[in-house]
């Protein structure tokens, strides 16, 4: 039995072994505990095995460790962390086969809205970073660049943000997974989140396309006109 690759994601480890005769063994373990072990019969000759970001099934309510204060008519750029799932895929050119999936640990749910009217989202506590160099991320997280624009005449305090992660495109920036820019506009007691579809850094390699971006681009092509920025209303600021 030949070990082709071992990929470590947080505390998890995925080992891909070639048994022979077109049979491969994929073992997911955590420390000494084997969580799952499966055999695949497929010709993986010429494939490389890589970790790829994958979206959670619900939006995430990200709570900042410290509130972000933005002065009147000012803007601030921060980076926050967003949990994601990680797919282990076998890739050869455009051909991709998902062979394992790792979900982030200890994801909690949170209610957002009024007690009688709202919805359940994932809840995640994130530190707020001024730049990427000062930040560390786990393998099951992506950095989200957030630009907060306060168009009001009063100072605003942002404590949490609801992000539809599946709307975000994800890029590889020097080995880090970084999403497209998210713009938060505070105006007239309302907060609107724009998913910009702009890479965090010019020329960054896109490794995952946001689902809404795909739909938006499709529509743009179909209608032959620019639909402008897709906007999603969100909420809560202090």
């Amino acid at each position, binding site marked *: 039995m030949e070990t082709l690759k071992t990929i470590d994601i947080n505390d998890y480890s995925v080992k891909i072994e070639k048994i022979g005769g077109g049979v491969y063994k994929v073992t997911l373990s955590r420390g000494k505990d084997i969580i799952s072990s499966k055999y695949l019969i497929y010709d993986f000759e010429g494939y490389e095995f890589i970790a790829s970001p994958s979206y959670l099934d619900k939006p995430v309510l990200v709570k900042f460790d410290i509130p972000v204060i933005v002065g009147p008519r000012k803007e601030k750029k921060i980076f926050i962390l967003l949990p994601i799932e990680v797919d282990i895929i076998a890739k050869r050119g455009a051909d991709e086969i998902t062979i394992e999936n790792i979900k982030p640990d200890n994801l909690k*749910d*949170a209610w*957002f809205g009024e*007690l009688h009217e709202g919805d359940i989202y994932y*809840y995640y506590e994130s530190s707020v970073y001024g730049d990427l160099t000062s930040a560390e991320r786990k393998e099951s997280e992506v950095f989200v660049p957030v630009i907060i624009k306060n168009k009001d005449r009063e100072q605003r305090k942002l404590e949490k943000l609801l992000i539809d992660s599946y709307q975000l495109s994800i890029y590889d920036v020097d080995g880090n997974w970084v999403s497209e820019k998210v713009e938060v506009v505070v105006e007239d007691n309302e907060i609107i989140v724009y998913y910009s579809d702009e890479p965090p850094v010019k020329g960054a390699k896109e490794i995952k396309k946001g689902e809404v971006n795909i739909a938006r681009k499709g529509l743009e092509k179909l209608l032959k006109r620019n639909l402008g920025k897709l906007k999603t209303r969100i909420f809560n600021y202090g």
Partner: protein
Amino acid sequence: MDKIPNISRIIGDIKILIYVVLIWFITVIIIKYVKNRVIRGLKESHGEHVYQLVDKIITYSVYTVAIILTLNSLGVNIASLIAALGLFSVAVGFAAQTSISNLISGIFLLIDAPFQIGDVVDIGGTTGVVLSIDLLSTKLRTFDNIFIRIPNETVLKSNIKNYAKFEIRRIEAVVGISYDDDITKAKEVIMEFIKSSSIFLAEPEPIIMVQELADSSVNLSVRVWVKRTDYLKAKDYLVQGIKEELDKSGITIPYPQIVVHQSK
């Protein structure tokens, strides 16, 4: 010679027969059309119970008209029949006061819509899952699998608790700790346990507060929010978890004690 009247009578009877068949054929078509096209959308827009009720009202109404038309075509005097029915209905009305009251209550329930089929409700102390909301009564299935029929008038007059109305529910557990124990530490231990458990919602935030300085213990009130569907499981998990975590931390949950002083 007398064959001709017989033939014309037979033709007349056949005409009546065709007429009656036609009436019932159209009746069935109307009912099917109304069910499929007109009120089908009610199920999604207003729920199963509204659909069922409107369905029954329309079905019975169409059948009533069909019966009247059939009787009319068979030569029954409808005017005198209706007059007789009027008298009969007065008599029945007196006898059926309760049913009519239930019927009207059913209509009010339909308008008020305090619950829907499938909701878990408590109606005047009876708790169960709503099976149906009919014209005269509401049917429940209790959690020990007993069928309960409650007249709609009773439902309308009772206090109704609908446990399925909102998506999240709060659980409260009261925990007594010893007067000798550190309250702050106890709060921290419980909060740590709650935060590490994914069954409890992160928001609305859990609250732990001193509720009472009781006879034998300092009572802490622990309030957490959970998804409605997790309620029972979470309640069990919360109470057991608090006990285990406090035990691990050396915090005691006292039981009522009486100190007896014996005179020398």
